[in-house]
């Protein structure tokens, strides 16, 4: 029986954001936007969804008089990501056997 893929993570932009954040301790909004080539509006929406799911932490502060948003993956986020990758590997294993 296959485990269902997490719908929060199984979307292109949200998965891209999580993959970036899993490899660093924290990253700011501009960095994520540059790396994902997403629009600011779309990225904000997807980041909010990840935040609502408890997968990432969003810190808003001022840096040299400009607003700055920093994102950091949470422990539940790391766990969800690991389970997502594990589930993907299970699916791929079966595909290779076929």
């Amino acid at each position, binding site marked *: 029986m296959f485990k269902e893929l997490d719908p929060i993570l199984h979307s292109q932009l949200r998965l*891209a954001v999580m993959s*970036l954040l899993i490899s*660093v301790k924290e990253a700011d909004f501009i960095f994520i936007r540059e790396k994902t080539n997403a629009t600011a509006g779309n990225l904000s929406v997807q980041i909010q969804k990840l935040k609502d799911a408890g997968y990432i932490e969003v810190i808003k502060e001022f840096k040299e008089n400009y607003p700055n948003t920093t994102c950091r993956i949470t422990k539940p986020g790391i766990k969800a990501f690991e389970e997502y990758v594990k589930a993907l590997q299970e699916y791929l294993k079966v595909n290779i056997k076929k």
Partner: protein
Amino acid sequence: MEEKETLSNEESLALITEMISRAKSDYVETGISALLWGTITTFCAVLTFANYWWQQNWINYIWFLSLFAVIPQILISIRESKIRKLKAYSDDAIGGVWISFGICIFLLSFWLSVAPNPGWGNTNSLYLILYGIPTFTSGYARRFKPMIFGGIACWIFSIASIYMLYPYSMLLLAAGAQLAWFIPGLILRKKYLTAKQQNV
């Protein structure tokens, strides 16, 4: 990147791999701090070397330049932290190593300038400086306060032991070992056993 709700498994895995490698490739250091310290240390060392023949008294104080270089270093660090777009997991560990190094250079210079004569008491001071390095660095990297305090305690004891005669300086060595390793070790052991019990 357009939002695509239906991803195939292969596409998901490829996306994860690509994003992880993109994050890694973006991590760069400006190198300004390394250039600053490389220049100052080389300058001071070469001048001290030349002074072996020149015999200029003022050159003996040239190493004080490195103290003044701390000010631009602080400004560089603040500026770099402001422009930095990401923080890697290794940053804390590397930061801990450099803080330890800075403190040890200061302590060693202090030891060289005030240690009255070499002997057991003073040697213990050097051992305590060494005890502090891995303890503080490990605590700083893992954000484990008992080890951070243990490392700092070793460095404080290293100054105190300069003024203490053998065998009394051995008591500071024992106190350093207690604060740096034994007490943090007890805390870690307790945490480990609790976690082990929960997983059974």
